């Protein structure tokens, strides 16, 4: 492996800058490129910029052939997510991807949601759980279909649900008998934000025990959602939680997010959450 080093522009590499060694002709048509320069922000839509970015590495001392690929590693996930969404649309099911850190009260809120919707909204749940069926057991017996996805896979388990996993879980559900699908993601504020699983909307549960700074520390997560449930409000008298500071931190990364303050334990404020879930079902 080469060594990582960081340039002034923030570019990180693990190769050697053997610029002098790059000067030879490429009769095959590979044009010489400026050395030691890197495009600041190429995108996948700009193959030329990407080609330029890797231009430093053409020309080696030994037999070597460059295969240009330009494959978005997330594209496969996104295609399958689109297929999931199409299947959900065909069955008239609205899907919500529910994310949070571990212990924020996601499953408690979901249990309350299922109890409230029993008999009025037909709910299906995909439950992402690293090793255990504990969460799925907590949600049983409330009229909802539950599909459990244990994400444990040898090396500590996956840290998020992705579209292939959700596609597999969807096969265990009768979508024609559901109005709303809630995908309870793995408790983690980093990875789940980056994987479209085919949902229509994303929401997250945040507990006031987590501290006001979390939107700034996990901006990708907080920016990805349409609603932020602020849970454990019943604990507010015992904490020094500063709601104004939290809200201004959230606004800095996601000014559009709807904030729903509630206590999943006492049920106070849950109606606003139920309304958010139900709104697109009409």
């Amino acid at each position, binding site marked *: 492996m080469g060594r990582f080093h960081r340039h002034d522009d923030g570019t990180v590499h693990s190769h050697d800058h053997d610029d002098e060694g790059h000067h030879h002709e490429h009769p095959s048509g590979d044009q010489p490129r400026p050395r030691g320069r890197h495009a600041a922000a190429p995108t996948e839509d700009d193959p030329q910029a990407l080609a330029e970015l890797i231009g430093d590495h053409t020309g080696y001392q030994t037999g070597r052939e460059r295969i*240009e*690929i330009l494959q978005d590693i997330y594209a496969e996930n996104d295609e399958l997510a689109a297929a999931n969404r199409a299947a959900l649309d065909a069955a008239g099911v609205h899907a919500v991807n529910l994310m949070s850190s571990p212990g924020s009260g996601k499953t408690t809120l979901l249990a309350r949601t299922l109890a409230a919707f029993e008999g009025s909204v037909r709910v299906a749940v995909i439950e992402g759980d690293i090793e255990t069926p504990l969460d799925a057991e907590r949600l049983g017996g409330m009229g909802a279909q539950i599909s459990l996805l244990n994400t444990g896979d040898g090396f500590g388990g996956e840290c998020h649900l992705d579209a292939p996993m959700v596609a597999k879980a969807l096969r265990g559900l009768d979508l024609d008998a559901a109005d709303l699908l809630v995908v309870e993601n793995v408790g983690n504020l980093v990875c789940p934000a980056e994987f479209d699983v085919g949902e229509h909307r994303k929401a997250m549960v945040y507990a006031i025990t987590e501290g006001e700074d979390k939107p700034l520390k996990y901006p990708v997560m907080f920016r990805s959602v349409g609603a932020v449930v602020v849970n454990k409000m019943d604990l507010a008298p015992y904490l020094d939680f500063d709601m104004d500071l939290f809200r201004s931190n959230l606004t800095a990364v996601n000014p559009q997010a709807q904030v729903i303050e509630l206590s999943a334990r006492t049920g106070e404020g849950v109606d606003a959450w139920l309304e958010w879930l139900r709104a697109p079902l009409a």
Partner: protein
Amino acid sequence: MHEVSLCRQVAAAVTRATAGRHVQTVYVTVGELRQVVPEAMAHAWTFVVRGTALDGARLELHHVQAVVTCDDCQHNTRLGRQLGFDCPACGSSRTHVSAGEEFVLTAVDVDGPDDDCTPEQEGTLDGALSPS
């Protein structure tokens, strides 16, 4: 955080693209908002490919800064330590991320057609290096 699974996906894509040829270097462009830790990725790569056809292949990451573009005034801002997505030029909150979400396998270097290639032979790989 999911560097291991990302490395697995990269390895699978490389394996498909190289059809059994010996891989020397794998080039991946990673946007800042993908939250990949370069050192963790490099470490994960070594054990994901160990014992596979890609064993020994180098992984080279190119880091892309996150940039937000204002929908109102089109001003580009590089996201810095003071994370905020509002446009600093006009104050608008209507912005979108225009760079920093990449995770692209850009290219792979494989051994030339002749594995025992000497430096003088490089010029004989007519057509092989042509960019598409």
